[in-house]
């Protein structure tokens, strides 16, 4: 059995986020490390996107299932909070997949999150008509990681994966 890191990562590439199934957990930057011990035990270290992300338990379960299906019986999932997850870790391919799925990908780096009252992130591109004339409807959307925007041109409301 080939239990090298590369093989494990190729299996993790097949585990998707339950809320946004177009993204794999590698695209999201949730997987922080994989440790293969001599006795066939694998430790997979993951980090939550948000403290209260309800998808974490499902993700841990899906990882274990994927590993079991491929003959890895001794799998330990470890959660880490440090360093804290950021949207800066999202892969470029993840961002383009998000966009074609209809969710605007995070634009700025997390250090540039705007804390000024009533100041919204500008020029978020509408994933449908690609206009940048869009407006913020609410900084909290259908999941913890998204905010709600609307396109001023095609009028379509859409999710924006907000910077974190």
């Amino acid at each position, binding site marked *: 059995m080939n239990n090298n890191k590369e093989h494990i990562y190729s299996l993790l590439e097949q585990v998707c986020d339950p809320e946004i199934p177009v993204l794999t957990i590698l695209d999201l930057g949730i997987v922080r490390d994989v440790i293969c011990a001599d006795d066939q035990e694998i430790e997979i270290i993951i980090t*939550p996107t*948000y*403290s*209260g*992300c309800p998808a974490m338990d499902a993700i841990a379960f899906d990882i274990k299932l994927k590993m079991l299906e491929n003959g890895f019986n001794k799998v330990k999932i470890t959660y880490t909070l440090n360093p*804290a997850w950021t949207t800066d870790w999202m892969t470029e391919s993840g961002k383009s997949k998000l966009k074609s799925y209809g969710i605007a990908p995070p634009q700025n780096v997390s250090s540039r999150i705007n804390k000024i009252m009533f100041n919204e992130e500008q020029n978020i591109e509408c994933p449908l008509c690609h206009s940048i004339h869009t407006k913020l409807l609410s*900084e*909290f959307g259908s999941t913890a990681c998204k905010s709600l925007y609307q396109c001023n041109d095609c009028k379509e409301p859409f999710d924006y994966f907000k910077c974190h």
Partner: protein
Amino acid sequence: MNKSSNQLIDYTLYLGDCALILGQRNAEWCAHGPILEQDIAITNITLDVIGQSRNFYQYAAQLINAVENKNVTEDSLAYLRTERDFKNLLLCELPNGDWAQTVLRQFFFSTFQQLLFEKLKDGPDEHLSAIAVKSIKEINYHIKWSGEWVIRLGDGTEESHNRMINAVNNLWMYTGEFFIAADYENSDLILLKNKWLEKVKDIFDEATLTVPENVFMQTGGKTGNHTEYLGFVLSEMQSLQRTYPGAEW
């Protein structure tokens, strides 16, 4: 158990209790928010703070089990302790009142939480520091959202302005407790008070609200002496585990 590990456990429970009880209160808005987007906003904030409380409880459970040889879990800490065991700030357990009171409570709390967590971030305990760093990113959004609401209502119509004044009058007496150190806290907590007042004053100025002066301050939450409201919050939150111990779904 030595004094310092006992203090760390109490402190971690205090941080978890504040987040959980405020989360439980905010969750009462679920499906009752003024409009759909704001219903989603307050429940998203709820999800964040309950997530934070889980992180604190998991750490507290680890500490307790190490020194006391017990088998507590994040769930037993949330669902099986009684009123006097909870150390949350009184502010967190108060009834939601109207929307003005709910957003003002969130603004007071999040502004305090941010200052406290900035200190925890650089503190000696690595675990608390990691939870703080993670939480601060969420808290920034909470402050922005609740601060905007305080301004929108304070500097809004006569009706919304009056509601905000009522909210200030109802809640102010519960903010003094933030800065009075319990025996499990560092006494330099008082240093955060002026920073907090400064931030509140900035928003109040924009909201055309006045910071109250010489108000009697209620205390007791941090040492388990609560308002009559906490018992009702717990009886609802814990009823399932009390009735069907160990129930899962």
